[in-house]
């Protein structure tokens, strides 16, 4: 009986030692202030129809993880764009898409929505870098990229 008790205590201790760090980490995550919010990326190509775009989104301040990427509002860019899956759970992503069709958006249009997990109390800051904005002929065209924050608990 003594041996049974001692063995049980040893096993329990071993299990606690192995699991405690993970449980502790998990509880810290739950305790810390975490919220989820999307950011909408808009591109304004003026009067020229937008056929392809590529940009980089980087978090410059705050504890932010990218958790998902959605397509844009126009039918031409409704599907989820190309991005590196390795960017998920990180704070930097390159997003790109194109459409070879004729029905393309002009003017200001939402090209993508990025879902973020924001931790801590520091308000995040982002940096956007537009590298490609091309018309249907494949030539780069002048365009402006902008970001709009959305909030969702």
């Amino acid at each position, binding site marked *: *009986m003594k041996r*049974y008790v001692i*063995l*049980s205590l040893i*096993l329990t201790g*071993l*299990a606690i030692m*192995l*699991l405690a760090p*993970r449980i502790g980490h998990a509880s810290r995550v739950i305790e810390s202030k975490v919220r989820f919010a999307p950011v909408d990326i808009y591109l304004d190509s003026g009067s020229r129809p937008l*056929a*392809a*775009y*590529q940009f*980089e989104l980087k978090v410059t301040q705050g504890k932010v993880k990218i958790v998902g990427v959605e397509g844009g509002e126009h039918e031409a860019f409704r599907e989820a764009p*190309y*991005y*590196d*899956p*390795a*960017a998920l759970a*990180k704070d*930097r*992503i*390159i*997003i*790109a*898409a*194109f459409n*070879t069709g004729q029905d393309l958006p002009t003017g200001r249009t939402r090209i993508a929505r990025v879902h973020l997990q924001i931790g801590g109390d520091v308000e995040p800051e982002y940096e956007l*870098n537009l*590298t*490609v904005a*091309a018309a249907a002929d*494949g030539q*780069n065209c002048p365009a402006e990229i902008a970001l709009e924050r959305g909030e969702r608990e």
Partner: protein
Amino acid sequence: MSDNERHFDNDADLGLKPEFSEDLGRLFAPDRPIPACVDRAVAEAARQHFGRPRRRLWKRHWAVPATAAAAILLGVCLWWFTASPASHTEHDRRAQALAVAQPEADIDNNGKVDILDAFTLARHIESSLPTEATWDFNGDGLIDRRDVDTVALVAVRLDKGV
């Protein structure tokens, strides 16, 4: 009468009167002396009777903690391996394939791989324009939408820069 029996019979803590104790002793004492061989035979029979079940009981006692230990270890191992990034192997393999494709993926020859290369390739395929054999990036013998996807994925790779 054995020593043990005598011990209990003479136990002063029982608080019995000596006469009453003697009467009880006479009443329950064996009417003839018990030979030592009978004592040994009874003891041996008792050992045989209780010995095996005790061993089984011992095994049963150890079976519970042993099973619990095995279950805990198995659970910990499973949790550990499922929580670790096991899918990295597949991702790394794909990334290596993409890295190989990167130099040839610069279809418009502007010195960098971006979404315009995928766009150009897609337009070539859709318009049935001439294509080059080196554009078969996934090596399946065809130049199709999957090669376009390969180029696009090279364009958005994090470790290549923009």
